[in-house]
């Protein structure tokens, strides 16, 4: 436990030394959101939500998509230790491989959680996203479950892949691909039938389903229980697989 706490604090310290990464990740969706708000309003209205402003789709959609980019960066941390030649020092410490993995994952789950909340609030202020009777707590539950799922997925990916370029590719393709398939870019109802068929395999689908329940239908905790549970169960499975797959003595290649 001591080692986990030490690594968590250490990761936060390193993260705070370069806040520009998170700042850029925050600004980008704020630029993109207004561009698609009007289109999404038409799209939602065509799907039966007559009073939709478009913010109900575009804000959670961008939060989910850019959340994947932010969470995906958790994988870089493992590789960065190899690049800084500090990995062997960590291995030679009292930290077990499980402590290392948990210590690397936890700060990013919290970071991604805060990132989503701030972006949602900014979406409310700038684009007029409203709960319409939906529960803010239910929304927080969905965001927490999504953050856990994305970070544990990236931990599994980082445990498996050998180079940071591979993780980078997964992060980019995953963020865009999952956003498209999972209904973050356009409402799920607007997707082609084949895409609707496979979209439930993406974490984005379940996150968007939760957000739709809150922001479009005014749902509460009960309405988001299923998506939250799916994401949390997936997190547990992904973390277990990451722990099994994780080899501390495996050489990883950071940027040359």
């Amino acid at each position, binding site marked *: 436990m*001591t080692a986990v706490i030490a690594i968590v604090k250490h990761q936060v310290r*390193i993260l705070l030394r*370069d806040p520009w990464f998170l700042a850029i990740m925050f600004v980008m969706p704020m630029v993109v959101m207004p561009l698609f708000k009007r289109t999404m309003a038409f799209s939602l209205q065509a799907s039966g939500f007559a009073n939709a402003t478009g913010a109900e789709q575009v804000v959670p959609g961008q939060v989910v998509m850019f959340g994947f980019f932010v969470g995906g960066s958790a994988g870089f941390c493992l590789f960065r230790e190899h690049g800084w*030649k500090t990995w062997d*020092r*960590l291995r*030679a410490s*009292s*930290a*077990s491989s499980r402590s290392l993995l948990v210590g690397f994952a936890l700060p990013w789950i919290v970071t991604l959680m805060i990132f989503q909340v701030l972006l949602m609030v900014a979406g409310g202020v700038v684009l007029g996203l409203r709960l319409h009777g939906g529960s803010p707590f239910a929304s927080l539950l969905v965001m927490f479950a999504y953050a856990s799922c994305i970070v544990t997925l990236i931990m599994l990916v980082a445990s498996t892949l050998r180079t940071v370029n591979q993780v980078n590719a997964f992060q980019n393709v995953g963020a865009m691909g999952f956003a498209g398939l999972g209904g973050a870019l356009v409402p799920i109802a607007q997707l082609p039938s084949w895409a609707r068929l496979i979209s439930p395999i993406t974490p984005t689908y379940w996150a968007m389903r939760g957000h739709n329940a809150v922001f479009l239908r005014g749902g509460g905790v009960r309405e988001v229980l299923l998506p939250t549970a799916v994401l949390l169960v997936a997190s547990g499975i992904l973390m277990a697989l990451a722990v099994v797959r994780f080899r501390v003595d495996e050489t990883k290649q950071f940027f040359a």
Partner: protein
Amino acid sequence: MLSVTGVEKSYKDIRALRGVDLHVSAGSIVSLLGRNGAGKSTLLSVIAGLIKADAGSVVVDGVDVLAHPRRATGLVGIAPQSTGIYPTLTVQENLEFFGELAGLKRVERRQRAIDIADQLGLSELLGRKGTALSGGEQRRLHTGCALVHRPKVLMLDEPTVGADVTTRVQLIDAVKQLAADGAAIIYTTHYLPEVEALDASIVIIDNGMVLASGSKAQLMASHRAIGLQFETAAPLSETDVQTLGITAVGTKKYQLPNENDVRGLVHLLGDRDVTVTAVETIQPDLESVFLSITGNLLAEAVQ
């Protein structure tokens, strides 16, 4: 303090360690000498629990490292060959992190960071980030990170590579002080003057085997083999070098590894009509002892 017995390690077809024995008592410094690829770093990694040995035993302060690697981590400190520090963190943060990882409380690790910085000449740089340090300062910080938790066995893998003279002197002084404080130290290097400055016991390792060990005086007494160095007008062929049983130490400069063969050498050179332009006797030193034992000069073996 440290007892390594019959350690074996293979990587596929390569036998990196072949039954290595090594014993280091508290307060002593052992210098591990060997060419690149001799097995030094592998041995250190096995002792630190970074690599699992195929056979043998490693016991640190009564703890079997191979059976209980996690229990031994607090007892061992290692500064690997490559400099590993956190560039975006300050010197103090780097040192404190490794203290915290080892379970030191806030006040204790803060004090340890200050003490180590003082010992390694980094006191003025505690607030400076890793990126802003010179190569020598980074090297000292790298070594310092291995000391924070007061390991009983400290392993420094070529700590002065790329370091300036000041850094070398400070590191050597720090290592001697740590030994005086009771740590068992293994120090690998290619710089023989450092071994003498440390007044360390010497272990020569080659092809994964310990070929010789002892104090400098003991090794010189038992391996005072080289007595002759000569220069020829033209380079000798590799076949001649092998036939004559000599070692090339320059394009036209050679050393005779066994002074008893001088007579035979003179005959053979005469038979080949080789013109010898200079001859000198060589006083035995660590380099010649290393050459005598391994058949290589340490300086060359590094390249």
